[in-house]
C-alpha cells in the first residue's frame, strides 16, 4: 500500500518536472506551431541566470542567499524572454509555415547557444546551491518526501495557473488566442499579428527560462542541460495534444506516474523504453494526442 503511495508521489514529482520543462514548449510549439528545437537552450539560459544571480549574491550579499531563487525567477524570465523575442524577430518570423526549415534553423540555433555558453562559462558544470528551505526531507507515513521536489511541484502548478489565467483574462492572452485561431481575421480586427507572434514566442521562452531556475536545483548546470529535456518536452506536448495546455498538464503527469510505476518492475532503462513504445502505439491510435483540438483551428 505505502509503496503504491510512494510510487504515486514519485510520479507526481517526475510529472511536475516534465510539465515544467514542457510548458514553454506548449506555447511555442503547441500554440504557435513552431518546432522549436532551441527550447531546451532557453531552459539552460534560465539555469545559468540562476548561477549568475547566486554568484553575485555570494560575493556581495551572502545573507540573501536563501532568496536567490526568488530573485532569479523574474530575471530568468526576462533573459530567456528577451532572447526568445530576438530569435523570433531575426529568424523564426521568416520561416512561418515552413516546418522543416524551422526545425533546422532552431536546431542550429540550439548548437550556437550551447557553444556560446560553453565559451562564456566554460564546458564544466557550474555550481548552483540549494537554499536551506529546499534541502532535506520529511516523513509522511512510510514515505520520504524531499522538500526540493515538493517545492518544484508547487512551483510548477503555480506557473501553470498563472499562464492559464494570463491567456484567459488578459488582453495579450486574448490577442494570442485570436491570432493562433484565425490569423487573417485577427489581423483585420486590427491586431498587430507580428507583434503578438514575437510576444508569444517571448512568453514561451521566458517560461522555459523560469523552468531552468527550478531545474538548476535538481540537475547539473552545464551547457548540455537543455538537451536532456528537449525530447521529453516534445513527448509531453505531443502526447497531451498539440495546442492544448490542459493536455500538456495531463500528459506530463500521466507519463511521470506511468514511468514511476514501471520503474520498480522493469528497471529504469526498460521502464523508459516501455514508455516510449507505449507513446508510439498511442500516437498510432490518436495522432493528435490525448486532447485533440477540434474545429477550424485544426485546419489552420
Amino acid at each position, binding site marked *: 500500500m505505502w509503496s503504491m503511495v*510512494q*510510487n504515486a508521489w*514519485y510520479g507526481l*514529482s*517526475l510529472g511536475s*518536472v516534465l510539465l515544467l520543462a514542457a510548458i514553454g514548449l506548449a506555447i511555442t510549439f503547441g500554440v504557435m506551431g513552431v518546432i522549436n528545437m532551441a527550447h531546451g537552450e532557453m531552459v539552460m539560459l534560465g539555469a545559468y541566470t540562476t548561477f549568475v544571480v547566486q554568484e553575485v549574491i555570494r560575493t556581495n550579499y551572502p545573507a540573501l542567499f536563501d532568496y536567490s531563487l526568488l530573485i532569479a525567477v523574474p530575471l530568468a524570465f526576462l533573459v530567456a524572454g528577451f532572447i526568445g523575442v530576438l530569435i523570433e524577430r531575426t529568424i523564426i518570423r521568416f520561416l512561418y509555415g515552413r516546418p522543416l526549415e524551422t526545425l533546422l534553423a532552431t536546431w542550429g540555433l540550439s548548437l550556437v547557444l550551447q*557553444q556560446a555558453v*560553453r565559451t562564456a562559462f566554460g*564546458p*564544466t*558544470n*557550474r*555550481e*548552483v*546551491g*540549494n537554499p536551506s528551505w529546499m*534541502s*532535506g*526531507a520529511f516523513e509522511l507515513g512510510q514515505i*520520504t518526501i*524531499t*522538500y*526540493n*521536489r515538493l517545492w518544484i511541484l508547487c512551483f510548477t502548478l503555480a506557473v501553470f495557473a498563472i499562464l492559464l489565467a494570463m491567456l484567459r483574462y488578459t488582453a495579450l492572452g486574448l490577442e494570442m488566442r485570436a491570432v493562433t485561431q484565425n490569423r487573417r481575421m485577427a489581423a483585420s480586427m486590427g491586431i498587430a499579428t507580428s507583434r503578438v507572434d514575437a510576444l508569444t514566442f517571448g512568453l514561451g521562452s521566458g517560461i522555459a527560462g523560469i523552468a531552468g531556475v527550478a531545474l538548476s536545483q*535538481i*540537475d*547539473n*548546470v*552545464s*551547457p*548540455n542541460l537543455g*538537451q*536532456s529535456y528537449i*525530447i521529453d518536452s516534445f513527448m509531453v506536448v505531443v502526447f497531451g495534444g498539440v495546442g492544448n495546455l490542459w493536455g500538456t498538464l495531463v500528459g506530463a503527469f500521466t507519463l511521470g506516474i506511468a514511468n*514511476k510505476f514501471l*520503474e*520498480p518492475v522493469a*528497471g*529504469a*532503462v526498460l521502464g*523508459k523504453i516501455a514508455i516510449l513504445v507505449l507513446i508510439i502505439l498511442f500516437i498510432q491510435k490518436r495522432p493528435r494526442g490525448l486532447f485533440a483540438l477540434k474545429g477550424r483551428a485544426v485546419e489552420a
Partner: protein
Amino acid sequence: MLTQLTHGIATMTRRRALAATAGLVLGLAASSPFAPAQAADDTIKVGILHSLSGTMAISETTLKDTILFLIDEQNKKGGVLGKKLEPVVVDPASNWPLFAEKARELITKDKVAVVFGCWTSVSRKSVLPVFKELNNILFYPVQYEGEESERNVFYTGAAPNQQAIPAVDYLMKEEKVKRWVLAGTDYVYPRTTNKILEAYLKSKGVAQDDIMINYTPFGHSDWQTIVADIKKFGSAGKKTAVVSTINGDANVPFYKELGNQGIKATDIPVVAFSVGEEELAGIDTKPLLGHLAAWNYFESIKTPANEKFIKEWQAYTKNPKRVTNDPMEAHYIGFNMWVKAVEKVKSTDPDKVIDALPGIEAPNLTGGVSKMLPNHHITKPVFIGEIKGNGQFDVVWKTPGLVAGDAWSKELEGSKDLIGDWVGKKCGNYNTKTNKCGGQGS
C-alpha cells in the same frame, strides 16, 4: 562516460558518416601527389584528439589543455631530439565516427608522430581501425573496462584491477561491508566493470542476495525510486556500500537525492569511479561530503612533483583555481614515456617507438615510478579518497605498492587465460592455456 543524445545521433548518422569517410579517403588518395610539401622538418607534430564541443567537452577540454601545457614545458627544455614539438589540435565534437575521420586527418594530412586522445570507450573503438591501418600511436588516458590490448594503443588510465577491485577490497577489509549495490549507467564500461566485480565478490563468498545491480539511462536525473530502493536494501542490518559507475552528468542528482533522503556517508558510503576534482569543481559539494572515490591520483597528494605540476599548470592556464585530476596525470605519465622512448630510439618512427615503449619508466605525480608493461598498460598506485567540502579528497587508504594493469580481467571466464604481450609473444590476446594467439575475449 558519454551521454544519451550524442550517442543516439552518432548511431543515427554513422552510415552517412562512413560514406563521407570513404569519400574523404578517395579524395585524399587522389590529391596526394599535389599535397602541400611537408612542413619543415624542424618540428615534431603531436596530435591532440579530444572533444572541444558537444557533450564530452565537459571532460575532454581539460585534457587538450594538459597536452598543450606538457608540450610547452617540453619545448622550454629544448624539445625532443633537438626539435620543437608542435601541437595539432582537432575537435571531434563528441561524435564517434568523427573521431575516426579526425584521427585519419591527423595521421595522413598532418603527419603527426603520436596522438593523445579519446575519452569514451566507443570513441577509442572508433579510431582503433584507423590507428592499425595507418600504423600510428594513441595514448588513451582514461580509466576503462579493460578486455583490450592493441599494438598501436597505450593505456595510461586504470584497468578494472587498478581501480574497481582495490576499491572493493578496501570496503570489504576496512569498512567491513557485507552488502553491495553496484549502480551504473547503462553502457559498456559499467556493465563490464560490474560483471568483473560481481564475479570477484562471489569468489570472496558474498551471496547473490547481498548484491544488487542497477542500471540507469544516460543523464538520469530522477533518482527517487532507486535511492529509496538502496535505502531499503541497506536497512537489512548488514553494512552496505554503493559501488558507483554512474557517469558524470547523472552523479549530481544522485548525490543530491541521497542527501535529501537522509542517507549519510557513514550509513551507506558511495565509492565512485568517475567523480574527480574536475567534476566536483562545478557542484555544491554538501551532499557528497564523506563519500568516497577511487583513483590513481588526487590533487591533494603532497609530493614535490605534484606541487610543482599544480603550480605550473595553474600558471600556464592563468587560473589559480584550476584543478588537476586523474586523467591529466595519465597524460603526464604517457607524454613523458613517449618522450623517453623517442629519445631512446632517436626516432619518431611509430614502429621503433612502439617497440621501445614497453619497459620505459616515468615518474608519476604521487611519488612513484610508473612502468609501461608489455601489455601496453602501466603500473599505478591506487588511492581511496574521501570527499571534502572544498572539492578535494582526503586520502584514506592506498595500495602498498604500484599495481600492474591487467589488459584481460582475471575474474571473467572468457578472459582469465588471456594476456597481452607485445614484447615476447607479439600478441594482444595470447591464450596461456592453448598457447595460441587470438583467444576469445568476452
